């Protein structure tokens, strides 16, 4: 579905050469929910922008359904961390959600149907006429998610979408994303720096090294499909997995030699 091959990104400018991403290779299968975690400043955003066609990698390639990504692909939607800047304050909520649809060849009736459906899915059916800045942070991010849903993407890229909301709102939004994923069968790549969030949400967790970034480990999350904040987070298996990822991240920060292992069953 989504394939990243030998991706490398070097920023060059004003006499400084920063190798943000060294060599990344991984795949995301159709309908999977994969979480990417890594120490802060490890080039997660760079990676995601390359995947979304917003940035050209120095070398390597990204393939979406077998086709190389060289610009924002039509079947892909992006949810940014900075919802306040990603939503347009001059448009009402419904207009924000509808704008990307205007680029598609859809009838007005169909567009409105998609907008209403997406807003309903995120529980904001009655906020359609509000301006984004009249809503709370969590609600604004819901609008951004609704905008992505209405676009009917096959792949959804989420760049630390809940980093700027409070803990309770974040828990609600996590459940929302998992619910939408199960309901709609979208392939989701979710980037986060929050280890608990990665384990709670993902079917698979990809742990990245510190910058210059490579894949440190890929880990299958063998928790049941039905997850809830109350029980999943206190399950012994959840604790094991999060401890394991945590150790990996700590080791990555220290710059310990990494072993690329795929689907390693973590110690029981």
């Amino acid at each position, binding site marked *: 579905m989504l394939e990243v091959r030998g991706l490398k990104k070097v920023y060059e400018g004003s006499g400084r050469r920063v190798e943000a991403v060294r060599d990344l290779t991984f795949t995301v299968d159709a309908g999977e929910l994969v979480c990417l975690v890594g120490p802060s400043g490890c080039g997660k955003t760079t990676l995601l922008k390359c995947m979304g066609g917003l940035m050209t990698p120095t070398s390597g390639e990204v393939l979406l359904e077998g086709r190389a990504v060289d610009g*924002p692909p039509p079947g892909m939607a992006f949810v940014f961390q900075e919802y306040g800047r990603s939503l347009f304050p001059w448009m009402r909520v419904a207009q924000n959600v509808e*704008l990307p649809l205007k680029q598609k060849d859809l009838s007005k009736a169909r567009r409105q149907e998609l907008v209403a459906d997406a807003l309903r899915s995120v529980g904001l059916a009655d906020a359609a006429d509000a301006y984004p800045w009249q809503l709370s942070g969590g609600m604004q991010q819901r609008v951004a998610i609704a905008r992505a849903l209405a*676009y009917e993407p096959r792949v959804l890229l989420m760049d630390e979408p809940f980093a700027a909301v409070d803990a309770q709102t974040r828990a609600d939004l996590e459940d929302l994303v998992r619910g939408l994923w199960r309901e709609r069968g979208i392939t989701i790549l979710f980037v986060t720096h929050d280890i608990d969030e990665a384990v709670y949400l993902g079917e698979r967790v990809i742990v990245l090294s510190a910058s210059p970034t490579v894949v440190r480990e890929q880990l299958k999350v063998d928790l049941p499909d039905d997850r809830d904040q109350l029980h999943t987070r206190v399950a012994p298996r959840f604790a094991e997995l999060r401890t394991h990822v945590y150790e990996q991240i700590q080791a990555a920060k220290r710059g310990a030699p990494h072993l690329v292992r795929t689907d390693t069953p973590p110690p029981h």
Partner: protein
Amino acid sequence: MRGRNLALGAAGLAGFLALGEVVPRLGLVKEAYFPPTSSIAAAFADEVADGAFWTALGDTLTGWALGLAIASCAGIVVGVVISVVPYLREATASTIEFLRPIPSVALIPLAVLLYGTELRSVLLLVVYASFWQVLVQTLYGVQDVDPVADETARSYGLGTWARVRHVLWPSALPYVMTGVRLAAAVALILAITAELVIGAPGLGARIAVAQTSQAVPEMYALVVVTGLLGLLINVGARTVERRALAWHQSVRGEVAV
């Protein structure tokens, strides 16, 4: 608070008018050059009753509005094109910085040579002066587009034109509005100046006629009219700005969520 400010403002104005009445009457200044408020008010009433005054006002407003409209459209279009086309901004920056400080009144001889005392003379000066105000603000405004907003638009496949229309234009609008408001004030100054100096028909020409015919109170009354015009234009521009930018931080203020 607002009521008290209003009352204080009115009291200040009344005091100023009273001073204008008393000082010439006491003979502190020559009444022939500084007529008291009451005789200016009487001359003002006479002007308002005169059809020629309204024609002159119409001429001035035509030159002002037409010039402002041309300058605004040109400033916005040129500003957006310069910003959107790669390298154009760098290539034009020095030329703009050279042309912009040239005072529009320095072009009066040129305007007279080209168009005599026609409306086009006024337009040349008005457009030249106000164009730069709009252009420079548009350039600033386009630079202020939030990269996240632009990336969002790109990630959803919005093309160049759609991004100009839905992201760049609304982002730049607060700056453009400021530019147009400044341009509106400058345009009035230049319209009056052109009429006064070149003699193109309008309030400025009427002021010159009043001066040469020793009609001092009438001259003052016309000056007051130009002042009122400037005031109205500023209030009007601010109202338009507030309505068009109701969504903007500077207008909406803090919203409780």
